[in-house]
């Protein structure tokens, strides 16, 4: 068992927000999904106060060793999530982390307060980093601003509060320290890198014009950012970015993470989370002190 902010988790591997829809997956794969649930905690897609339809298609572009998405955070809004999704997500065999986003501290506070009331929700992740939505700069990109936002949200909940940092910043270590100073119980990183693809006519391919790069292409950026943040914070870290194997997960743990999240690899292998957790366990069994 891994202790993560007081949650007792079976193993180190969870999902990245927005990269696994447990409700749709249960429809596609049946009950076997719950028997072999790949993650030790489930992170919801990002929820916003109001419902969002998301960006117009096309929303995907494949790159060398990765992909760009401009999904645009479609979701049913807070009320729709609590009413329709939460009862189904509560049936999952693992703790639920709800990821929320707002463009102001007030919105985020309202979201956090609503989640705080629901016992089905074990922890809250603040997405201060999504590069897909046109709010100008990410609110998490400037350390002082980030600390103010987190400090504003903090009183709204006693549940563990994870701040998902943006990688599109000059100094991610300073952002990590700011999140901790603002009262975060944990930080998670990295979110996608801002990227763009043009079609053969030179027009933006993606309906949202720009999108976020994920997958193996960003793996070593993730290792660098996790190591940089780990050097400056004492709270636990959820590391992610391009993890495909237990060896990749181990890299992030060794760089300073307590948990590892799998995103894009689940698209290639729906059960990747479980496989990676198993590979990690095998590595641990084969080595006296694998995390040294």
């Amino acid at each position, binding site marked *: 068992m891994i202790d993560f902010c007081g949650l007792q988790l079976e193993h180190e591997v969870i999902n990245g927000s*927005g*990269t*696994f*829809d447990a*409700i*749709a*997956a249960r*429809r*596609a*794969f*049946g009950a*076997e*999904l719950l028997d*072999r649930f790949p993650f030790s905690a489930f992170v919801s*897609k990002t929820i916003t106060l109001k419902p969002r*339809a*998301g960006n*117009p*298609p*096309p*929303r*995907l572009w*494949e*790159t*060398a*060793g*990765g*992909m760009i*998405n401009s*999904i645009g955070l*479609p979701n049913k809004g807070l009320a729709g999530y609590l009413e329709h999704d939460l009862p189904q997500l509560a049936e999952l065999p693992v703790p639920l982390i709800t990821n929320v986003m707002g463009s102001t501290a007030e919105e985020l506070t309202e979201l956090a307060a609503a989640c705080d009331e629901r016992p089905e929700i074990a922890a809250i992740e603040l997405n201060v980093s999504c590069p897909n939505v046109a709010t100008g700069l990410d609110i998490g990109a400037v350390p002082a601003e980030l600390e103010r936002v987190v400090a504003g949200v903090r009183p709204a909940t006693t549940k563990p509060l994870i701040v998902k940092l943006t990688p599109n910043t000059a100094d991610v270590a300073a952002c990590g320290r700011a999140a901790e100073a603002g009262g975060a119980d944990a930080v998670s990183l990295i979110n996608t890198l801002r990227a763009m693809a043009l079609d053969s006519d030179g027009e933006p391919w993606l309906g949202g014009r720009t999108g976020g790069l994920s*997958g*193996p292409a960003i793996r070593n950026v993730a290792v660098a950012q996790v190591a940089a943040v780990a050097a400056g914070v004492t709270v636990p870290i959820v590391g992610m970015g391009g993890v495909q194997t237990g060896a990749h997960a181990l890299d992030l743990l060794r760089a300073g993470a307590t948990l590892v999240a799998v995103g*894009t690899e*689940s*698209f*290639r*292998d*729906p*059960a990747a989370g*479980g496989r990676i957790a198993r590979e990690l366990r095998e590595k641990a069994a084969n080595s006296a002190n694998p995390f040294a």
Partner: protein
Amino acid sequence: MFGRRACTVVERTTYGPYVVVDVHDPDGPAPAPGQFYMLAAVERWGGGDGERPFLPRAFSVLRAREGRLSFLFDDVGPGTNRLMDLDREDELWLTGPLGEGWRPTDRRPILIGGGVGIAPLVALADTLDAPEVLLGFRDAHHAQAAALVTQGSDPSVTTDDGSAGHHGLVTELLPDDLSGVELFACGPPAMLEAIRRLGVPAQLALESGMACGFGACFGCVTPLAEGGYARVCVDGPVFAAAELAEVPAH
């Protein structure tokens, strides 16, 4: 069945420019016509044009019998290119069957397929009794794939260049009176959009760029008539024409 599984290629056949690959899938659930699978070669997936492919690719099941699945491939990029290179003994990652296939109807079915889009219609024809089948191709070379329709009467064929069958668009073969008919169509977006605009009962099997195929990424959406978007992979790939706002060009 949760997760992907490695399956072995047992046969490879060509139909003009197309390749049909059969794989042995003894343990997978039987697919319904119109459902699809996410496929990736176990070896050498990557290293093609633009260092791709990276993600798996979506393919309709062409035919399924006795633990054996057939897929029809058209070479349009690094993914299909690699899959068409597969040969006996090679291994394929396979996730599926996925999505919502064709829905049964009491109306008289007419099946209309364009190019590689005939795949899910072949699967459907296999379950019907001598349905009417209309197929459009670029030219006689591509039209060799019409031989895949083995159930019932010969399909009617059109080609863009007149080198086989009727010279023109496959939609020109539709009867003027469509009352009592339900259309089942798959093919290029322009063809599907033309059928949607007919305003008659029709089921359209859409294509869309997909990353996951099981509802995880929200990448494959298509706009709905009522506003908003549906995921082609879990809400489709087969949609009632009336549900759709349009059939997007890509």
